[in-house]
């Protein structure tokens, strides 16, 4: 199957059905292994003690919140430039999942911050920029539900997504550009990770597991969105058919014209 064939929604759904069991198994496997390592293998941090274990869900959730918006931005280009039929399906399906992982990132960060920083929240650059990302996800969800026509909604959402992408490098480099309470990058940095391998490996395994989970949920949500659009088309077809049937009856049988008009008036 060529990549271009996936533009066909029916073939895409068939592919989802095939890869779904593998993705579910990989998600469960990696997350189970990651949780085992996080609680039974990784040591306590010498300063933070056991609270470092919150990192194994906080950091993957944070990565996914950025990854999801970046993926939506590529989809937005697909919608605006190439008009790929699955682009806005992918973008729309990703919004609630991205919002959920950003919410997890914010709340687990808060639960980690209270015992370590002594406060649930600080208006510092990293925390505030992630909160802005969460609000942007909610804004996109509102936009999708406001415009009924999915093609028009897709274009508006694509523009908003691309404008919002400016926040992604701000989040990533906020800890370098400003003096913040949040720790600087310790995994993806020029000089290599600064975390000891006994903590780094469980973190990477959890991150891979979360990424498989995200992919699984996203493909399932895309499948739902394709079915929703198919349903919408069929309902419009049904409405058009009943309209043409009323018009035909009116034309073909003048004696029933009054009845047709009465039906139309009743529908209004």
């Amino acid at each position, binding site marked *: 199957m060529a990549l271009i064939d996936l533009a066909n929604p029916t073939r895409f759904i068939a592919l989802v059905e095939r890869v779904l069991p593998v993705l579910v198994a990989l998600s469960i496997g990696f997350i189970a292994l990651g949780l085992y390592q996080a609680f039974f293998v990784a040591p*306590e941090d010498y300063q933070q*003690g*056991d*609270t470092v*274990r*919150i990192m194994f*869900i*906080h950091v993957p*959730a944070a990565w996914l919140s950025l990854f999801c918006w970046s993926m939506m931005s590529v989809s937005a280009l697909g919608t605006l430039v190439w008009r790929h039929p699955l682009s806005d399906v992918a973008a729309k399906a990703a919004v*609630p*999942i991205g919002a*959920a992982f950003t*919410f*997890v990132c914010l*709340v*687990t960060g808060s*639960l*980690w911050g*209270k*015992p370590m920083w002594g406060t649930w929240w600080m208006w510092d650059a990293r925390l505030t920029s992630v909160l802005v990302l969460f609000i942007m996800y909610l804004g996109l969800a509102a936009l999708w539900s406001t415009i009924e026509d999915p093609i028009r909604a897709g274009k508006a959402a694509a523009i908003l997504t691309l404008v919002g992408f400016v926040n992604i490098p701000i989040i990533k480099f906020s800890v370098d550009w400003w003096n913040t309470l949040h720790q600087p990058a310790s995994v993806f940095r020029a000089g290599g990770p600064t975390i000891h391998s006994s903590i780094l490996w469980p973190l990477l395994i959890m991150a891979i597991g979360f990424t498989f*989970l995200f992919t699984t*949920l996203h493909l*399932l*949500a895309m*499948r*739902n969105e394709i*079915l*929703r659009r*198919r*349903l919408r088309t*069929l*309902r419009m*077809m*049904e409405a*058009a*058919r009943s309209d*043409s*049937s009323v*018009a*035909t*009856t009116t*034309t*073909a049988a003048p004696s029933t014209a009054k009845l047709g008009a009465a039906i139309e008036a009743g529908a209004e």
Partner: protein
Amino acid sequence: MSTLLGLGNHGGFILAAYGLTLLVVAGLVGWILVDHREQKRALADLERRGIGRRSRPQGRGEAA
């Protein structure tokens, strides 16, 4: 809350973080599965009424 499940003095924070993540992921999975069932049911309902993807639109001649 001290040394909750052997997780030190801050066990409550750790368990709350993992518990909340589990709830959010379970909510996402549940929402996606319920949504899928609803879409499939609505499509099947339309198919039963003869409005399927393969059904041909009725022309004026057919209706008359």
